[in-house]
Every structure is written in C-alpha cells, then in structure tokens.
C-alpha cells in the first residue's frame, strides 16, 4: 500500500511538471482526439460504401473500434514513457531508476503521463456507448463486468507487447522501429473483425501476437457472434486472462533483461 502511495505522489509530480509547458499540454490533448477521430473516419468511409465488413454492420464495427480504442487509451496513458526507453538506456538516464528504492518499471510509468492519450480514452468510451445501443448489446450485469475485465485485459495485452519490446532495449539499444510497427499494426488491424483475414493471419494475430484478444474476440462475445469464430468460445470468454498472462510474462522478461543494462560512459 505504501508503494501505491509513493506511485501516486510520483504521478502527481509528473503531471505538475507537464503543466509547466501548458501550451504543449493543451495542443497534445487536441492532437490526440483529432488523430483518433481520423482513424475511425477511415473505417466509416469504407462502411458507407460497403455497408458491412465481413458481415459486421456499422454499429458492430464501431463497437469493436470503441473497444480497441478504450483499451488502447488505458494502456497508453500510464505507459507512454516506454516510448523513451531506447533513449533512457542509451544515454544512461535509466541509472536514476536503479538507485531508488522502487521498482524501476513503476518509476518509468509514473515519470510521465500522456494526457493526450486521454483523448483515446474519452473517444473510445463515447464510441463504445453510442455503438452499443446501435449494435444492440444486451447489457446484463455479467456482460458489464466482462466488458470491464476485457478492457483491462486488452490494455494489458497491448502493454505486454510494448514492454517485451522495451526489454530488447537493454541489449540492442534501438528498438524504436519495432515498437512503431507494433503500434501501427494494432491501429490498422485491431479495428476490423479478424475473420476478414486469411486463416494463417488469424492464427498469427491470435496466438503469436495477442491482438485478437484485445477487441475482436470480446466483441464477438458481447455481440453474440461467437459462432463465427475459428477458436472455441471458451477461449474468447477467457480473453482478459490471456492479457494478464501476457503482461506478467512481459514484465518478468523486462526485469530479467534489465540485468543487461550497461549504462553509459565507463
């Protein structure tokens, strides 16, 4: 509990520090919203021509997209600082996290929050609520709890990939390209029902990279579309757990790899 208190204090300090640059702060939030709206707009344009993608209607696609966006916002607000991982390792900035009595990852997370990503979160929630009415989701209490778990699980799954990638920084110093690739892939593919892709691709996005567990499988559960899945419905129900497992594994790998940290200068 003491750890949570310290993290909270550090996060507040990070926020105060960011407020020192107010203009940047406000522009950042605005840019975040605009960026995500454009993303959905692309899909909307496609849908207005074809009316459905893989049998999913506009409402259903919007629901899927909202699910992904909210999960994305949930991971990216606290973990934004991972973007600077290469820099921190290469320049020796990581030193400071190792000489303080707190888990280094917790220190990284709390050293900067990406407020701009709140745009993702807000956009995601708005889209999700609007679309769930249109797509006709049956909101039983169980479904609501499942939704919350799924959002957290999705955030953890995406965070896991980025943390695993950041773990490579300790050895290879430059992983920016790979990280951008992952982010871009989630952005481009995550918002579509994965059934429109080939079987091999679906397998890859389910078992090699856990993208399917972020939005597609949970959305299929909530929309009553589990019949069309290539995996057993049980797997879809367990989506939050998959995110958690990936996250724990990635965290472990990261901590283990941090022993390879070489600092800078000798």
């Amino acid at each position: 509990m003491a750890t949570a208190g310290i993290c909270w204090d550090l996060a507040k300090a990070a926020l105060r520090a960011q407020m020192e640059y107010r203009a940047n702060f406000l522009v950042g939030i605005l840019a975040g919203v605009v960026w995500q709206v454009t993303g959905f707009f692309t899909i909307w344009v496609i849908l207005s021509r074809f009316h459905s993608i893989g049998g999913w209607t506009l409402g259903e696609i919007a629901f899927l997209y909202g699910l992904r966006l909210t999960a994305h916002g949930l991971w990216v607000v606290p973990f934004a600082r991972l973007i600077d991982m290469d820099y921190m390792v290469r320049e020796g900035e990581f030193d400071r996290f190792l000489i303080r009595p707190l888990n280094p990852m917790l220190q990284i997370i709390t050293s900067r929050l990406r407020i701009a990503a709140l745009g993702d979160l807000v956009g995601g929630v708005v889209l999700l609520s609007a679309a769930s009415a249109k797509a006709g989701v049956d909101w039983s209490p169980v479904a609501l709890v499942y939704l919350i778990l799924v959002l957290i699980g999705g955030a953890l799954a995406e965070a896991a990939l980025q943390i695993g990638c950041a773990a490579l920084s300790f050895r290879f110093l430059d992983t920016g390209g790979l990280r951008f690739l992952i982010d871009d892939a989630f952005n481009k593919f995550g918002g579509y029902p994965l059934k429109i892709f080939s079987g091999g691709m679906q397998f890859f996005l389910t078992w090699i990279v856990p993208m399917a567990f972020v939005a597609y499988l949970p959305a299929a559960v909530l929309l009553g579309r589990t019949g069309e899945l290539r995996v057993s419905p049980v797997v879809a129900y367990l989506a939050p757990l998959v995110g958690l497992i990936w996250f724990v594994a990635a965290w472990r790998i990261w901590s283990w790899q941090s022993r390879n940290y070489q600092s800078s200068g000798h």
Partner: protein
Amino acid sequence: MPIITADNLVKEFRLPKRYGGPLGGLRTLFTPAYTVKRAVDGVSFTVDEGELVGYLGPNGAGKSTTIKMLTGILVPTSGMLEVAGLVPWERREENALRIGVVFGQRSQLWWDLPLIDSLRLVGKLYRVPAERYRRNLDRFTELLGLGAFLQTPVRQLSLGQRMRGDLAAAMLYEPPLLYLDEPTVGLDVLAKERMRSFIAEVNREHGTTIILTTHDLADVEKLCRRIIFIDQGKVLYDGPVQRLKEQFAPWRELVVQLVPDGGELPPDELFDLPGVEVARREGAKVWLRFDPKLIPAPRLIAQVTARCPVSDLAIVEPELAGVVRGIYAEREAALTP
C-alpha cells in the same frame, strides 16, 4: 567491520565488432563477433564504516564502472561484492534505501519542479518520517544555503545550486553510505569549498561512509585519509594519501632564492650533489629536487649556503597533483611504443 567488501570484481562490456568499407554497416549488424572491453579488471578492496575514501584514476580507468556496481546499477561480469551485508544488484531496492548517490554529471532531481518538490518526493520515496524530514530539511537547508532557491525549478538553478540540491537530496534520509561521483566537477572555487565542508561535516557528524571519485586532487587532499588509485581497471595503490606520495614521489624540493654575486648568478652545475637535481629555475629562484634518504635537508642547506649567498629558503613537500601527474606521465610513456 568492513561495510563494503569487493573481491576480484570484473566488469566487461561487449561491443559488436565494427566493420568499415562498403557494406560495413550491414556486416556490423549481422556479425556474431564481439570486442570485449574490460573496464574493471579484478578490483579488490574493503572499506570500513565511517571511512572517507578517495577513488582516483585517469579518465576511463574504471572509476564510474566500480561506483555503478557498488550502487547496483551494473551487474559485474564476475567477482563478489557485498555492501552492508547485501549484494547490491540482487537486492537492489533494499540496497537503494541505504545509499545516497550524487553524480556530478547528471542531476537526480526532478528537472521541471521546484527544488523543494524534489526533496519532498525523496522524503516519500525513502519513507522518511515527517518529523525527521522536517528536521533534516531545516538542517541541510542551512548547511548548504538552499533557502534562496528552494522554490526555484531545478532547470533554472546554477550548477553549484543544483549540486547542493543533489547533495541535500542524497543525505535527506541519512543513508549510512554516500557515493559521490565527481561532485565538484565544473564548480567554482567557492562552491567547491562549500561542497567539501559539507562532505567533511556529514562524515564527521553522521559517521557516513563516503566514497568519492574526483579529478580535483584538492578534494582528496582536504577530505580523504585514504586513496584507492586505479588505472586500466586495476588497483595501483590503496592506502593513506601520505604513503602514496612516499611511494611515487619520494623526493622533496628545496626552493632557493639566490643573491646575485657581483651581478652574476651561479650556474646550475653549482648544485651538482649526489641525490640532488635542479627541477626548475627562474632566474634567481631555483627548485632543487632531492632525495632525503641520500642527502638530509640540513646537510643540503648547509652545502648550498656554503657555496653561494642565499636570501631565502623553503622546503616543499610534493603536491598530490604533481605526484599523480607523474604517475599519469609514466603510464603514457609505458603505453607509447
């Protein structure tokens, strides 16, 4: 009781082998070959509680690498290290609670926040009880003269102010161990003096064990009783400051102010005595370097005054800086083929 025991510490850095020429970059990318650089090569020492040790060496000698292993930042390639009963990198967070670290080259403070915020956060991180925090803050604010800029964002502080802030942050939780890596680098004379008196005070009053690396030998002469001198990753000397001088600079110097005899100054040959050489000469002022074992100072003075009229005499002990310069020069000579 030693608080630090280092036994045969080794740290190697592996760098991918680089290739030049066309497609060299591509070859570098895929090569399995590494070049190994041994930054620390079998360093052993112990430090007792309450000691203030100067850790010296030329650039690239392995000083910072050693400090980084002591603090738990780096994991050694081999060897044993125990700090206050812990292996630093294995129980990093516990170790962190017991050490204060100041890097002269890199501030540990929160760059965009007022100094007081950094101190407050450090107090929280190290779980300092409110009352003790208050007391230490007041004390260090006074000792280091922080009052005038406690509310200033760290990025707007001068280097001297920032270093004082860093020192206060490192001592706020009264760690039994303090590592100072070049804490006076880039500071002006006055700021250096202030840092030194604070370091001495902390060592004396709190019994804090301090390891200090520096290039400013005045720091060492004023603060440390013991020096560990390393070069190319190996310990060259470990012992009292005084003995380093005796070992590497066993000579002393007699500064003689000559009186021109009928307008003529005596030539250097006049001082041709066993165990004596002219180290420097500026007109009527001569620096005679002599070995006290071959010719004791009183006899040298008697011989000199017998040979020519003298208006002033002074015996000078070698300065540490001069001694170290000598060691560096010897090493350069040994390395040049």
